[in-house]
């Protein structure tokens, strides 16, 4: 139960930016990519809430729509923010794994 709760606390901003860092994607493709990447199932209400915020903050931009599907791509600013956030996460993860190793020894 506790691990499930921890899984749900993953930052949706990071997940969406990480998904788009692999290339432009439309809404459904982002949801599937995040699902495969982290096991987190986004609903359309959550995804478009995050996309609207990221678009407003200039971290993603919409591309011309193909039918009813509009792809989004990460901007340079979005890539910078994602890199900084991932570096922090890696730092925390490295320390965490190190300490777990020490505890296990």
């Amino acid at each position, binding site marked *: 139960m506790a691990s499930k709760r921890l899984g749900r606390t993953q930052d949706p901003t990071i997940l969406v930016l990480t998904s788009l860092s692999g290339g432009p994607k439309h809404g*459904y493709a982002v949801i599937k990519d995040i699902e495969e990447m982290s096991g987190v199932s986004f*609903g359309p*209400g*959550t995804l478009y809430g995050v996309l609207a915020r990221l678009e*407003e903050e200039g971290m993603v931009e919409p591309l011309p729509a193909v039918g*009813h599907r509009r792809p989004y791509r990460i901007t340079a600013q979005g890539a910078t923010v994602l890199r900084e956030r991932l570096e922090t996460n890696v730092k925390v993860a490295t320390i965490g794994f190190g300490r777990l190793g020490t505890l296990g020894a």
Partner: protein
Amino acid sequence: MTGDPVELALRCYPRWWRDRYADEIRSVVGDLTEDGRPRWAVTLNLLRGALRARTGAVGMPPVYDLWCTRTRVALAAATLPWVLMGPLVLMVIGGQRLHSSAGRIFPGQLSITGGSNQLVMGRGLLTPAPPLTLAGSVAWYANVAMVVLFLLTLFVLFAGWTGFAGAIKRSAVPHRRRLSLLAWAPALSVLADFVLTVVQDVLMPHAWRTSGGRPPVPIGGHLAVAHALGTALVVVALAGWLVSIVCAAVAAKRADISPLDLRFGKSVALVVATLLLLTLAAYTTWGIGLLVQSGQAVHGRFTTISYSHQDLWPLVVVGLLLAATMSAFGASAARRSWRVVSLGP
């Protein structure tokens, strides 16, 4: 308009959001449904998103008129819940009765302004009534707090209404005079209630004769007419209240109120939301006090309180909780909207 829950959920989003994202979301929902994602889960997720879009306004285009409209809607969302729930709370905490195992209590109600000078009729003698239980006292103080909060909120709304009526007068919209008349509906309703209350008070007997072991008898006045006026007062108050809401809503929708007046409304919305939260706390305390008092009363001679409509307590608690949540969201949205509106067109 279809009965499809997804379409209904999409209609809960603001128009600007629908214009921008609805087609994309429909396409995503179609793909997810084909994948086997339950439609009810998607609908719930969309409803949550709609609530966030309405309160947060993330991604909302920087169009001045759009933000003005949002501020007006937020102000309505902050104040209307109290307007609907306030009188209901007052009705539920009305019709108070005092009981004691020692006998019938006179007068049968506690006075907000006076002390506890209740008498109990037992064995043909009037003697001081036993005290309230601790829980009963807590319920009574919560009752007093609710009446005070009601009057305070009414006062704040009255202040907001004067600003609103003045703003309509200053606005340049057509039919301004007719809108002003509509805006005056709440004042006329309160005036009618006030007149009826005064007349009823004049007709009530102001002295009671006690003799021997018999219940007190009224001296002078017209008790039956006063009671009939009391019933008329309830009907007039209720009808006036509902008509006032409709009139004020129509006037607010049609009048192009300036941003300066919206700022005043923002303060009113914040105060009303806070007072509604306090009312929720007092009302919850009141109900719990009433529930606990009977358990305490069995341990000695006490006076207990009951109310005609106290059975409605759980239902009204849920209603108040929803109203307080909506009001808090509205006040928060109004605050944020005002920041954008204050920057000017």
